[in-house]
């Protein structure tokens, strides 16, 4: 069993240095866990992030050399959204900074932490 409070605490550790929301969602865009400031934005972000991820992931699987998508970074005028896969779920950071390297390092570390427990329930 996953403890929702502990999961939210783990997600909230990434909410520093411009990261506003950390989301855990499934591939159809349903929000499973969330930590951050704007709840309304989170639902919109999760729906769009999963849609864009699925569109690009499909191309990787359809290519001759099976090429899985590791990270997706959506760079907008006001900030960035970075998405990666953890077990069969998606992990997403919503940030108002442009530090790609820092975002990638944060999401990689969070992925490493969550991979094992989420794998056991998937």
């Amino acid at each position: 069993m996953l403890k929702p409070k502990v999961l939210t605490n783990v997600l909230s550790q990434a909410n520093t240095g411009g990261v506003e929301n950390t989301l855990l969602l499934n591939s159809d865009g349903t929000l499973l866990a969330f930590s951050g400031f704007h709840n309304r934005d989170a639902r919109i972000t999760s729906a769009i992030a999963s849609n864009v991820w699925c569109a690009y992931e499909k191309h990787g699987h359809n290519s001759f050399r099976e090429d899985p998508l590791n990270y997706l970074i959506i760079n907008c005028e006001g900030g960035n959204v970075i998405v990666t896969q953890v077990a069969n779920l998606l992990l997403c950071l919503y940030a108002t900074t442009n530090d790609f390297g820092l975002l990638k390092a944060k999401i990689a570390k969070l992925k490493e932490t969550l991979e094992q427990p989420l794998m056991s329930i998937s």
Partner: protein
Amino acid sequence: MSDEVKRFFTSILNKVNGLNCVLISDRDGVPLLKLSKDNKFPELGTKQSFLSTFSIATVQSSKMMLGKNKQIILCYKSSTIVQLNKAPLIITFVGTESTNIGHLLTYANEVDKYLEEYKIVLEQNLI
């Protein structure tokens, strides 16, 4: 002008580590210019269906309350793809997994002045 554009993108290809090819296409993914280091184009990232996915993705991404979408960066296991939103054009860079993305993005702002001619032609044809 076309030679100038080719020269500019060839110089990016030569300067950025790991970068293999550059494509300029319209929003439907129809290539207008294709450049590659060794005249080989990888399957992933150069197909019309892949290029046109960006048109949908950029419209959706602009609704995330972070302003207009500028670019999408994709890190696949064995390749890195950067797509720039230069409406009505899409610029796609395809490289290896070790492509220096930061270095590549320093050229993103310089790209605009070389694309004016393409944009004018496309806009005239769209009317």
